[in-house]
């Protein structure tokens, strides 16, 4: 089983990202489970959402304590939350940030940075990074096929918005693939 924890702020679509990961993993022929950490929803407040992916049906209902992967939608959260908390030894953290700053070096886990905000502004025209980070996740980890992510995103958002989000997924995937 692979466990993923997504950190974001209320309104950034962290829960949607977790759900789309679950849909995409299922598209890949796997079982999946996505759920929020059930906070009181407020725009801007720190939010956590989880996804589990496995080859067999998933029964466990507790939160994720030892993630294989962590996705951080907003680099300012690094100051507030231990984003590496509980991460497995060979785990990977994917962070949306403009540059590899000094701050990232203090994180006690393998970190990959992606400028998801720039990709979102360039491709979607708005700083909505959740779908961008799904592309980055697929590119960096290889856990989910790009096509499955694109299908899940395309089905969730209709029309032009859907097309732009799918294009952003593509761009982020390529950026990370080059990295990895």
């Amino acid at each position, binding site marked *: 089983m692979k466990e993923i924890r997504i950190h974001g702020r209320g309104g950034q679509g962290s829960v949607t990202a977790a759900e789309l990961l679950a849909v995409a993993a299922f598209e890949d022929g796997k079982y999946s*489970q996505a759920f929020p950490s059930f906070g*009181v929803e407020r725009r801007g407040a720190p939010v956590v959402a989880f996804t589990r992916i496995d080859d067999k049906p998933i*029964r*466990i*209902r*507790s939160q994720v*304590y030892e993630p294989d992967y962590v996705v951080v939608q907003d680099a300012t959260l690094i100051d507030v939350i231990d984003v590496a908390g509980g991460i497995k030894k060979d785990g990977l953290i994917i962070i949306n940030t403009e540059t590899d700053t000094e701050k990232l070096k203090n994180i006690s886990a393998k970190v990959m940075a992606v400028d998801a905000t720039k990709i979102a502004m360039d491709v979607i025209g708005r700083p909505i990074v959740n779908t961008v980070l799904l592309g980055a996740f697929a590119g960096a980890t290889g856990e989910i096929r790009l096509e499955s992510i694109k299908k899940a995103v395309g089905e969730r958002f209709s029309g032009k918005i859907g097309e732009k989000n799918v294009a952003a997924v593509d761009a982020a995937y390529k950026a990370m693939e080059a990295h990895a």
Partner: protein
Amino acid sequence: MSKLTVVEGSYAVAHAAKVCRPDVIPAYPITPQTHIVEELSQFAANGEIGACEYITVESEFSAISALIGASAAGARTYSATTSQGLALMHEVLFNASGMRLPLVMTVANRAMSAPLSIWNDHQDSIAQRDTGWIQLYAEDPQEAADMTPQVYKICEDSKIMLPAMACFDGFILTHVYEPVVLLEQDLTDEFLPPFAPEHILDPSNPKTFGAFADPSIYSEFRYMQELGMSAALKKIETVADEFNEIYGRYYGGLIDGYYLDDAEIVLVAMGSVIGTIKDVLDELRAEGKKVGLLKIRSFRPFPTDAIRNAVKNAAIIVPLDKSISIGKYEGALCTEIKASLYNTKIDIPVLGYMFGHGGRDIPPERIKKIVSEAEKAIVNGITIESSYADLREELL
């Protein structure tokens, strides 16, 4: 092979309610039940539930009152609620069961205030245990969805005619996205016959429902409700089998077991924690520990005989409760399991734990700790009959 789709638990349940073809849905939104009634209002607005009347009432008290009127008039009804909303319905819950109206309501289990909590435990439905409603508890979204046509079939039986709550854990199951088979309309039509009550409210043939009963006849009405519950004991089992034949899925009838046959330590639980416990038991069994799980599916009627039979060879029984009776310091399962074993030849210690109240997460480690405490109690005996397994002493 049925098709799996990744949907939210609430959607799976709303969809299940839809294919049961309800005639009237009076509902009032409350977290974490809201998504269910939102989905249903959308289905109704789209004309996907036939001539179903969706009533936007102004409170849960109105919702349950409208349910009673509609059901007495012969309509199949559906609603969903939770926590304070269910508590607001309290006095009318008695009217529904006393008038023998087979209402079906999904309860998205949530803690009671105060202190204010929107998160999951079982205090809301457990507090309604004596209202004469059937109560079943589901362990995952698929079971919660599948339970919906099952409870209609159970409670609309002419020998039963009692309202039913299909309970599933708020947030943990209402808000999870996972692969679920959405109930097929054709299979559901085959499984669930139309609602055809013997008595209905009809202006052209007037009747009184829930008439005045003086002391000379009151107890007899309560006894007849008890007979309805007894009939439900059998029906819950047969309906689970019929469901399995048509849809090919089974979750147990009144109870279910996991590694139960040779278990020395028997954990007893309801709801979403069942899944976590099953994962933990796989690990513990691999280590050679004889631990098993008794899943309580039907809390009302309480399956006393089935439980006695299931636990009779255990060395210790460990009920795990998401509710507390304050002043007794134990949860409902603990109290009822102990009561079920008294006056029998079964003399097995019962070690009760409460956990997961107000939405506190239940990690696998908590279950393992409880099992190791139970192992010690087998050897040393029980010193404390019931306690919180996850109390934060440092805050007290």
